[in-house]
């Protein structure tokens, strides 16, 4: 048998092998039988590029780096790789995560894992920040301040005390001498005197003036606070007190009180707007700040300040009339202290007035 006939017979046997036809015992020729047994093994031969491709995958090299590939094999490797990956559902969904190569470029699972971690972290940050922002809305503090009518917030001392006064004297040659009034009392039994005329009274009673008992004068020789005269004198007035007018009080007023005015209490002091006295007008009024403590506690409300506006337009003697606490009182006082006013006017000249200022602290 020549080689051509052997080749033909072998081809026939190979066709049977590839077609899945049982060939055992069919080939009488021993050589053909040997060759067919090898051919039957060759039908399971892997694709030549598969081994190189898998090696490249395992070693993390690109396909083009693999020196054992023959020209033109790279494209077939890509096709084979794609076919193999398409059979794996996860690879089809996330080729770059579960694959090690894609389109000829190396991909490292460690890098992909790091990338996935960073993306998940970034997404989590966005979600968490969104939730946090929803639970912690920005609270904008709104603070307003305005002067209010005194009628709404009457001063703690009554009007009679605030605007009262007193005076007296016993027709002395000199005006009342310098000193301090005696303590206030709700009822006056003995008027104050500087020069004692009766050294041995039948019933010694401590001298007092009529006014709020909680107001305390400095302890010193009895006399008029506004006098500069050092020589003891009850004053040129009359009525029994100390002063230059009339009554049993101290000062140049009338009555049992202290200072200008009449009817008891402390006289003098600032005017109130109205009755010929114009109201002061704020010309510089920076808004108070919200205190951190109150903002965190979401605390809001109004603070009312009692303020004296001087003839120069500056506030003084600021007192908290209605307190809120949590640092808001201090913030209100600190802000109003910096306010400047066009002063109140009376009879064409600037006068000192007392006003109340309401400071509103609101959170929105």
């Amino acid at each position, binding site marked *: 048998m020549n*080689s*051509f006939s*052997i*080749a*033909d017979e*072998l*081809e026939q046997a*190979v066709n049977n092998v*590839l077609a899945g036809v049982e060939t055992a015992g069919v080939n009488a020729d021993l050589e053909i039988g*040997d*060759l067919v047994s*090898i*051919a039957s*093994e*060759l*039908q*399971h*031969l*892997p*694709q*030549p590029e*598969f*081994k190189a491709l*898998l*090696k490249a*995958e*395992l*070693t*993390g090299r690109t396909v083009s780096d693999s020196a054992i590939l023959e020209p033109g094999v790279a494209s077939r490797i890509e096709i*084979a790789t794609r*076919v*193999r990956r398409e*059979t794996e559902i996860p690879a089809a969904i996330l080729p770059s995560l579960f694959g090690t190569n894609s389109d000829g470029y190396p991909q490292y699972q460690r890098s992909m894992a790091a990338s996935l971690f960073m993306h998940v972290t970034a997404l989590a940050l966005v979600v968490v920040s969104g939730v946090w922002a929803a639970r912690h809305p920005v609270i904008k503090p709104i603070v307003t301040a305005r002067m209010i009518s005194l009628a709404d917030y009457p001063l703690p001392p009554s009007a009679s005390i605030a605007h009262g006064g007193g005076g007296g004297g016993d027709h002395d040659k000199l005006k009342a001498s310098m000193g301090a009034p005696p303590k206030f009392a709700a009822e006056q039994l003995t008027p104050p005197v500087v020069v004692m005329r009766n050294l041995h009274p039948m019933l010694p009673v401590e001298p007092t003036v009529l006014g709020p008992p909680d107001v305390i004068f400095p302890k010193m020789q009895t006399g008029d606070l506004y006098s500069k005269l050092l020589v003891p004198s009850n004053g040129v007035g009359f009525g029994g007190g100390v002063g230059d007018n009339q009554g049993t009080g101290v000062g140049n007023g009338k009555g049992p009180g202290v200072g200008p005015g009449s009817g008891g209490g402390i006289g003098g002091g600032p005017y109130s707007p109205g009755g010929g006295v114009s109201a002061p007008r704020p010309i510089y009024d920076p808004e108070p700040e919200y205190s951190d403590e109150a903002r965190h506690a979401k605390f809001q409300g109004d603070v009312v300040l009692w303020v004296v506006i001087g003839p120069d337009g500056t506030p003084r003697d600021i007192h908290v009339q209605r307190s809120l606490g949590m640092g808001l009182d201090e913030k209100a006082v600190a802000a109003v202290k910096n306010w400047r006013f066009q002063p109140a006017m009376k009879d064409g000249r600037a006068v000192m007035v007392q006003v109340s200022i309401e400071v509103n602290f609101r959170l929105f």
Partner: protein
Amino acid sequence: MHLKVAENDTDERLLVEAAQRDPSCFAELYEQNFDRVYAFIARRVANREEAQDLTAEVFHQALAGIGRFEWRGAPFVAWLLGIAAHVMSAHWQRNPKRQEILAEDLELAGNDGSIERRAMIFQLVESLPEDQRLVVVRRFVEQRSIREIAQEFSRSEGAIKQLQLRALRNLRTRLRSHHEQL
């Protein structure tokens, strides 16, 4: 020419330890054992694509788990074939056409002469002359007809048949030579 194997257990152990320290050294173990693993799987699955997929899965798992490999005297390929058995078992559990790997089949895997022979043939194909190798690939891998191959290479059908004959004879001769060396 003979099947790529480590000269002795010591060499293979050194290769395994090197791969455990540096996974890039896994390539040598892969070259030595690819044909055996592929032949083992190809004998038990229906088609080439399935065999290639499972072989790739085996080596990926082996590379991932090389750090856990403990040398107990058995050749490294036995560990790979154990992985292959598990991979095929899992594959068949997902596949309606379920098959079973008998325990004795797995025990024989390391000493299965048919696997060794097939692996040897696969490796010998790479040593064939280029024209013979291409004919083998076209005929047996791509399963093209003699006529198609002849048209591709602009040769006569008779010439292609002669190349096929020479390729198979070459493989038989080299296979015998390998057996005589053992």
